[in-house]
């Protein structure tokens, strides 16, 4: 019953902000311990992430990756599944993108290649999610564990392919050849330069528009189509979904295919937009961070776009700290960990006190209102 009386601005506004505030305080304590003034640190993070075209470019570049990996978590979550496999799905998605770019780059125009690489990213990512999905749907294997396992299997598989097939003969480092320039997704500074505007060079590329579009498309898919309806039904109440004639296993597989495809898109940004080659460990924990982003964004595409911006800021702003304070670069990871801890794992910690506070306030307000307008006899 109490749910009815708590207004939405408390649930989606005050409580998440309170959680972030606590995470920030905890981060401040860590900074103090490391002999860094937290206020100064925050300032240099903000100026590092937003203060220059270069910093902003990086922030938005990271944001793009997070949008994809977080959506991959959110879609599965709406179906009641925890997809921890974004890491592996994105890695295999990179294989798809890489193969297309290596094979077709320079042979077909970019405008023809791009749709193919987008499809390849989606198909490869989706296929990597298919086996865990099928095992969950038909054999009841828990998807959390199988997707974790598939992350490791993906790492071994990519390592193998790089060493035995993709690595050009005669090179030492384990990475593929650099793609033909014609297959690269244009970076933002190049696009602006084309129109005669000079901005700072950064890895930010056109993928960001695809990310924003995909976020919107996911919203439409989940809340405005019958497939989304089925996914949300299964996620909320499996027996009711079955009663409604919805095939649980079919929806499970559909959901994971979509999730895998979304994670695969991350490779467009990182591989085709920035590195221009397949490298070892290119996902670099961004699949895991996507879980945190999805949580922060309350598994809603619009929330995820905002949360991705915040994590982009943390990532870019945090790496700025390294230069300013010669602190270890992995301080960023600490910040991310604290955010996940307080707004994910401990999200209920602040919920009850805040709700109680509000209810007390509301009661007193109503009581006052009654005093001022005594019931007419």
């Amino acid at each position, binding site marked *: 019953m109490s749910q009815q009386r708590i207004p939405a601005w408390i649930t989606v506004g005050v409580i998440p902000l309170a959680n972030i505030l606590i995470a920030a305080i905890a981060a401040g304590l860590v900074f103090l311990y490391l002999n860094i003034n937290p206020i100064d640190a925050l300032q240099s993070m903000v100026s590092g992430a937003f203060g220059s075209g270069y910093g902003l470019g990086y922030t938005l570049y990271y944001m793009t990756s997070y949008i994809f990996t977080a959506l991959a978590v959110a879609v599965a979550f709406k179906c009641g599944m925890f997809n921890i496999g974004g890491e592996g799905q994105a890695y295999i998605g990179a294989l798809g993108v890489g193969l297309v770019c290596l094979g077709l780059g320079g042979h077909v125009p970019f405008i023809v290649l791009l749709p193919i690489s987008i499809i390849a990213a989606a198909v490869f990512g989706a296929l990597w999610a298919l086996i865990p999905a099928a*095992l969950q749907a038909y054999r009841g*294997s828990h998807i959390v564990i199988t997707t974790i*396992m598939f992350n*490791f299997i993906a790492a071994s598989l990519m390592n*193998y392919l790089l*060493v035995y097939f993709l690595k050009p003969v005669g090179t030492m480092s384990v990475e593929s050849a650099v793609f033909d320039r014609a297959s690269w997704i244009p970076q933002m500074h190049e696009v602006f330069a084309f129109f005669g505007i000079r901005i700072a060079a950064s890895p930010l590329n056109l993928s960001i528009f695809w990310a924003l579009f995909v976020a919107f498309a996911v919203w439409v898919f989940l809340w405005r189509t019958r497939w989304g309806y089925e996914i949300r039904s299964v996620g909320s109440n499996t027996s009711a979904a079955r009663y409604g004639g919805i095939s649980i296993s079919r929806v499970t597989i559909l959901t994971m295919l979509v999730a895998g495809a979304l994670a695969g898109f991350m490779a467009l940004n990182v591989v085709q937009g920035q590195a221009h080659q397949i490298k070892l460990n290119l996902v670099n924990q961004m699949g895991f961070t996507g879980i945190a982003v999805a*949580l922060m964004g309350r598994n809603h595409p619009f929330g995820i776009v905002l949360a991705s911006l915040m994590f982009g800021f943390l990532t870019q702003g945090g790496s700025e700290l390294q230069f300013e304070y010669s602190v*270890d670069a992995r301080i960023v990871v600490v910040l991310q960990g604290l955010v996940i801890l307080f707004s*994910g*794992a401990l999200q209920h910690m602040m919920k009850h006190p805040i709700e109680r506070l509000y209810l007390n306030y509301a009661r007193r307000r109503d009581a006052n209102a009654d005093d001022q307008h005594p019931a007419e006899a």
Partner: protein
Amino acid sequence: MELFNSIIVILDATLRNATPLIFAALAGMFSERSGIVNIALEGKILISAFFGASAAYYFGSPWMGLLAGVLSSVVFAQLHAFATVTHNGDHVVSGLAINILAAGLTAAVGNYWFSQGGNTPNLAFGDTQARFTPITLPFADQLADVPIIGGIYSELISGHYLLVYLAFAAVPLCWYILFRTRFGLRVRAVGENPHAVDTAGISVAKTRYLALLMTGILVGFAGVYLSVAVTAQFSPNMSAGKGYMALAALIFGKWRPRTAMQACLLFGLLEAIAIRSQGAVFLGVEVPVQLVEATPYILTVVLLGGFIGRSVAPKVIGEPYVKERS
């Protein structure tokens, strides 16, 4: 004889590789049997490895390292309990938070303390031995040259770190605790039907906190083994997925101590083969080392798919316990 020697060497490495997995799998067993999904073994290994190595360096004693390492993983395990039990936090998210936090904190604090890029200083410097050293069992030296027995006893069985022997001793001990004590009975019950445990007058929360205390202690041994015994140094991310592999072994071993240990040994053997042979030849076909590395995970997936036996998880694993209005 050549073959015999290489088998002994591989088995020797198997025991060493299996040790941290065994500690971590037993640790995970207590948590998961009580109903708490533990993907946080990875982070807890890392945190204990870091604090273990740091304390060993600071005090110049591996024992202080062991104490500090275990304490630190206990603190993180209790944080895990605070999130999952007291605040009904999602088990997977809490585990993830701990893993990420551990990865970041150990590197950042390590760099601040020692300025060696997140590493701790080497624990074997000069005459000071702040690390654990291998133990030579009685008569091992005398028997070393005896054929077969020398190989098995002096090479394979003798000459390991104390923690290796402790890991194998912990298996029957944990079995006893889980299946023959009041605490174990309650841990198993709370992972199957917390409602029933509650009505039997037992605190569900207390039982789970205690189960995670056991997790913290055992996983601490795994971390300390890596940094204070094997490498004699902490380096960032040195757990390298061992927590997840231990989780796989636990599932593969059907949440039971002896079978989990067997899975750890199997995974340890695969690791030994992978390290030793860059591209082993099996039945005339070259097996890429990456396949050997991935085998533990593939096997676990196959098992979870129910294609080789069934691994049935504790019933309420992953679900927060909330008293409901019935």
